[in-house]
């Protein structure tokens, strides 16, 4: 019964995540950028833009320039999350991919980085009056959600171990449209429930910053307006109206 | 819309004190606007105001500050032909404050 419920939940969450985010990405991709607005100095070539994006994604370059504390906590969280996520591939692959094996030991410590980062970010929402001012309830809740996911996951690793083999069988089953038994210890159920909610919220929340970054005209445009004429389709129609 | 009171008649002005109908200007009105601006009109002020009005009559716009200064230099002497002196006469700037008193429209733009 519970296994079925979670199975349905995860199918539902996955569909919402993929379709919802896909639709948003389609909207971003289809909405024209009428003018060239890269924040300069900006790269003058496509490859330069890729490099700029790479620095933003991998090092959070702009954030580093802006505020070292937010950068530090943000980086700890995101980098930790990345390693933790990659580590989770071991529950979906059989045999486990070799690079997942390699990062396995780091993934465990990464969870600490992730939780520390989140705690730091949350603390700033209370301690820094400017950030307190701009925080809506959802901004707090988002951090709480992520923290709870992290802590419940760590709880299973370090405190009340769950039957991880059974969990793996459950998820591998889902990938083949079979529903196997899911262990019922509370930490696991909480963990999985929260993860599913996160997946559901993703396309309707500020988590859209992840795809958004790649579509941000101030970052992804090439600085070459004098050399190459840039024209949005709706603007081209204006021209047909005669000048 | 607010208005100045001159000898019993009212002369409308915009939110910044520039009169809206330029033909309603008179010397008395200039004194009244000047008073509102806390400018005490003396001969030199009048010299500037008259020049502005003549210039406007011909060109439909106030003169460039530099052109004004050049004219002042000619009539009032070189020591008075400076931007600084203009600001002594009209602390809020010759272009804007003096135009207001002279009954010209406010010069607009990045100035």
């Amino acid at each position, binding site marked *: 019964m519970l296994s079925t419920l979670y199975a349905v939940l995860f199918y539902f969450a996955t569909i919402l995540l993929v379709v919802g985010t896909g639709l948003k990405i389609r909207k971003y991709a289809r909405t024209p950028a009428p003018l060239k607005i890269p924040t300069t100095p900006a790269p003058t070539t496509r490859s330069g833009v890729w490099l700029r994006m790479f620095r933003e994604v991998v090092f959070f370059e702009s954030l580093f320039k802006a505020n070292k504390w937010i950068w530090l906590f943000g980086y700890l969280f995101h980098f930790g999350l990345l390693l933790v996520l990659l580590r989770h591939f071991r529950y979906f692959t059989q045999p486990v991919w070799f690079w997942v094996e390699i990062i396995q030991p780091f993934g465990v410590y990464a969870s600490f980085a992730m939780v520390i980062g989140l705690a730091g970010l949350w603390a700033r929402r209370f301690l820094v009056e400017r950030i307190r001012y701009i925080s809506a309830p*959802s901004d707090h809740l988002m951090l709480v959600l992520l923290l709870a996911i992290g802590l419940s996951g760590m709880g299973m690793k370090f405190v009340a171990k769950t039957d991880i083999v059974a969990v793996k069988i459950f998820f591998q089953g889902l990938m083949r449209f079979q529903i196997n038994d899911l262990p019922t210890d509370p930490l696991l159920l909480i963990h999985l429930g929260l993860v599913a909610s996160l997946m559901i919220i993703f396309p309707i929340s500020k988590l859209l910053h992840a795809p958004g970054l790649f579509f941000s005209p101030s970052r992804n445009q090439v600085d070459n307006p004098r050399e190459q004429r840039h024209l949005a389709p709706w603007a081209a129609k204006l021209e047909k109206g005669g000048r | 819309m607010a208005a100045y009171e001159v000898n019993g008649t009212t002369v409308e002005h915009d939110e910044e004190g520039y009169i809206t109908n330029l033909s309603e200007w008179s010397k008395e009105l200039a004194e009244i606007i000047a008073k509102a601006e806390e400018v005490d009109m003396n001969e030199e002020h009048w010299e500037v105001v008259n020049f502005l009005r003549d210039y406007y009559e011909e*060109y439909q716009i106030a003169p460039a500050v530099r052109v004004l200064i050049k004219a002042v230099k000619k009539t009032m002497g070189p020591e008075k032909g400076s931007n600084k002196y203009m600001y002594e006469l009209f602390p809020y700037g010759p272009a804007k404050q003096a135009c207001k008193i002279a009954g010209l429209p406010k010069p607009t733009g990045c100035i």
Partner: protein
Amino acid sequence: MAPLDDAKPTTVTDVRGPDGHPLDIPRLACGAMADLQSFPAHVKHNERLGYPGELIDDWKEVAIAKIGELADKNRAFQVYLDACVKCGACTDKCHYFLGTGDPKNMPVARQDLLRSVYRRYYTFAGKHFPWLVGARDLTREVLDDWYNYYHQCSQCRRCSVFCPYGIDTAEISMAAREILDTVGKGQKYCNEIIGKVLDTGNNLGLQEKALRATLESLEEDIEEDTGVSVRIPLDEKGADILLIAPSADFFAEPHIEGLIGYAKVFHQAGVSWTVSSYASEAANFGLFIGSYENMREVSLRIRKAAQDLGVKRIVFGECGHAWRVGYSFLNTLAGPFDFLDQNFPIPQHILEFTHGMLERGELNIDKSRNDHIRLTFHDSCNVARGSRMGDMPGGQFEIPRAVLRAVCNNYFDMDRDTIMESTVCCGGGGGLLTDELLDLRTKGASPRMKAMQQVTEDHGVTHLAAICAICKTQFAKVMPKFGYDMDSILSVHQLVSNAIILDGQETNNTSAAED
């Protein structure tokens, strides 16, 4: 925790004392600038631009629909509304926040004024759980808040440099102003001026006859000064270069000294050039109100002037927002410029032109003529963060400095965090250069002025050079409040003009150092 309806205004207004680092962060002063309202446009100003004369009855529906329309037409608007994570990195980056302490002048809070409404009507969470995500209905108070606070943004893009997603509050401000215009709530300063450009070709309303008289007067002045006859041609068909200068260069100080500088450089270059009375304005206030259509209309005048006069090149004068529109948008708005000489950048900045001549050693310069000046340079925001000069990214920083160093012996940069891509706005850009906003302009200028005070203390700097008409006017107005003379602000080409020795110019060395 209800960020958008803050408590009653607290009293703190002057949050910045005279001392301290230029970028010191003030305490929040909620509501400090809530009542600052720039004059609304008159009916005729709005209607001239095709907007309703005054607030329409169904403003609410129209405004909400306009948000949706803009989100469909402009990717930046759509992405920026969605992507902000409220990280707070931008909160201390706006000079108006630094100067006023009003939290709604923090870039993210400024965006939220509109984002909260977008969320309410266009997102799932905002439709069903408004309290959770800070979404709110569009009410008259919200509309008024938009008007007041979107006219406290100079669209300088400083916040976009530091946001991890490049969210540019300027884009949101422009969109907000377009929405306000659409419902009949335009701003007088911008809309009156755009109307003047459409009617007379420039922001001032300067007719051809007056322009000609001014230019002739300047020719006289140059000849009197140098003994050389330098022309400032107007409407000369067949000239090689069309100069597009901000109309302030025909009117105000120190702008006009810059125009004299351009004329001298062109004279020495031996090129034929002309000003156009039809397109006698570089500035394009269509940018400020976020109106593609108005911006295009104004830009097309430049195209038409270039075609009518049969020029081969277009060169822009010293003008910040104008250069952004010129460099980044002109090709889009009024291109393609296939009828111009493709061997030169289209358009070219006057500094690119002058820099080229200096590099080739084609200008005879006597730097000592600027020895009475100890100089620093204000990077105008829209040049710094919205355009480029030369071939390399960052040329917009290097080229002006190279020119200044070539004509002046004593040059010093201000604090690195306040220049180049991090430059702090003069406080008067983006349609705020109007008298009723002077309080805001002064407070917004304080970070820049403090950075200048630092170099005055450390290096005895006396003067500030700028390449934007608005910056120059703004500084002339606010510098006296920070202990400088109003003529401490100089045009870059004024310094060039001081130092240049024209062929055949009488140089008697004793009077040479006068400016």
